[in-house]
């Protein structure tokens, strides 16, 4: 097939792809969210178990549909948030994920962005009916990215359907 790039990610990605940490659902999660879509080729689900007293993340798990970097990004993020307060978890950036993975190649940055997008959606879901002083009202860049990717795919998929039915 046409233009491809080699998988130039660090060995940590391959290790986590082989033996992902925190894979699966948390049945009694009190916050969870999904980002991306099958059509995008990237999808990450984040499940959080939050201690309601001190708003600390006790447990975190993930599921991922996507490339090896996508799976590794989601897996490392769940490792990074465990034991953190929600406010600190919110501050994790896609660059932190990339650094933890030994540096993602530029074409895979969006895997880190999608993982952060999913986490922040989960944190927002946790606060859906609760008050928070620090939670930003407006969507952050990572959340917007997830949204844009999902919307773009809808448009592209419709365009393909249109061009097929026209001819």
């Amino acid at each position, binding site marked *: 097939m046409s233009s491809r790039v080699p998988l130039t990610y660090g060995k940590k990605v391959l290790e986590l792809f082989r033996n992902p940490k925190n894979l699966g659902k948390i049945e009694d999660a009190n916050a969870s969210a999904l980002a991306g879509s099958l059509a995008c*080729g990237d999808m990450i689900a984040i499940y959080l178990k939050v201690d309601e007293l001190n708003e600390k993340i006790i447990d975190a798990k993930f599921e991922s549909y996507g490339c090896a970097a996508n799976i590794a990004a989601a897996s490392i993020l769940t490792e990074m948030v465990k034991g953190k307060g929600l406010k600190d978890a919110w501050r994790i950036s896609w660059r932190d994920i990339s650094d933890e993975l030994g540096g993602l190649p530029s074409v895979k940055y969006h895997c880190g962005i999608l993982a952060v997008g999913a986490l922040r959606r989960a944190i927002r879901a946790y606060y859906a009916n609760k008050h928070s002083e620090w939670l930003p009202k407006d969507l952050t860049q990572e959340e917007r990215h997830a949204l844009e990717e999902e919307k773009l795919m809808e448009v*592209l998929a419709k365009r393909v359907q249109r061009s097929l039915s026209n001819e």
Partner: protein
Amino acid sequence: MSYSDLSKSINELIESHGIPKREVYLDNENSGLIIPEVLKAIEDAYKWDGKGHPSITHLMGWISYQSLYKATESIASILNCNPEEIVYTHSGTEANNLAIMGSAINSMRRKILISSIEHLSVIFSAERLERYGFKVMKIPVDKEGFIDLEFLSKHIDKETFMVSVAAVNHEIGTIQDIKAIADIVKGKDKDILIHTDACDALGRIPLDMKKLGIDLASFSSHKVYGPKGVGALYVREGIKLESIIHGQLSTQKLWPGVENVPGIVGFSRAVEFMHKNLRENVLKMMELRDRLINNILERVNHTLLNGPFGDKRAPDNVNISFLYCEGEALTVELSLNGIYVSSGSACTSRVLEPSHVLLAIGRRYEEAHGSLLMKVTPFHTVSDIDYVLEILPKVVKRIRFMSPIKPSEG
């Protein structure tokens, strides 16, 4: 990531991956093995009859010219054309560029028709012409990848300088009826050039340049298990092309530069090898192909074959979509098990979109993302295929297990 970081990271990645105990290489779409006797012929040519420059006037030049000419005669006799009608390039991509750009420059007409599933070297060459006022029209294909002949017939006109359709599609193996296409086009206007990208047809279907009634055809050496870096363009006698690269010394005007004589010798040996036993090779590949296709479709749920079944499919091509799987994850997991394949997923591409070929035959995005392309060779064994059949269902199961969206019956 800087260049040195990248090489360190690649080293670590390879070390962490390790060399699998058993390996089956099926990524022959992208490149692959070289036939051992071809490699030996190349080595001999580098040491002796291919080391000179074939346009130079001394013994080594003459000997080199003799080798080049012998190789060309052999290829020409297999393709049923004259040796003068073969132009060497350094890849199939270059041959496609030369065919399209080289004839556009020379033409007063301003329209080209290509199929919507062409190799990107054809699509991008045609689209580049748009910048210079040309019109590109893409011929739609049906769900198996066969071009719409009615559309073609309706849209060729006095402005059309070329129709370009691959004889065999590189991704889904659809074998087009090039003779019928040529008859339709030439029946309307014999001045319209017919080009076919025959890179994936050579060694898979019989190719007779005279019988096909075409003007231009591209070939690639590594697709017939010859060396990389060698391509060729058949240019029918009387067709005027303009060179698209410029230089000085060469035995051929259309592609100036030192001919890769050892590579060309290797290419000719590979073509000879594939054609010496063409029928036998094709039957062997078909048997392996169908063993792989039928067993995957039977043993793995939620799978779709991309491209046609049976005789209208290239004998080496296996392209299957595994729903609820992302293709790059599959290729990495298979790689860990020593099986090397490629995918039409967007993740493996520089652009956001998955394979344009799969979208053109009506596959949805998620179906294209989960596609795997495997190409068998006459050198594979039933045991190789059975190893793939043993591993692949487990690989698909694990990748599906990791996904938040799973097929209903597991």
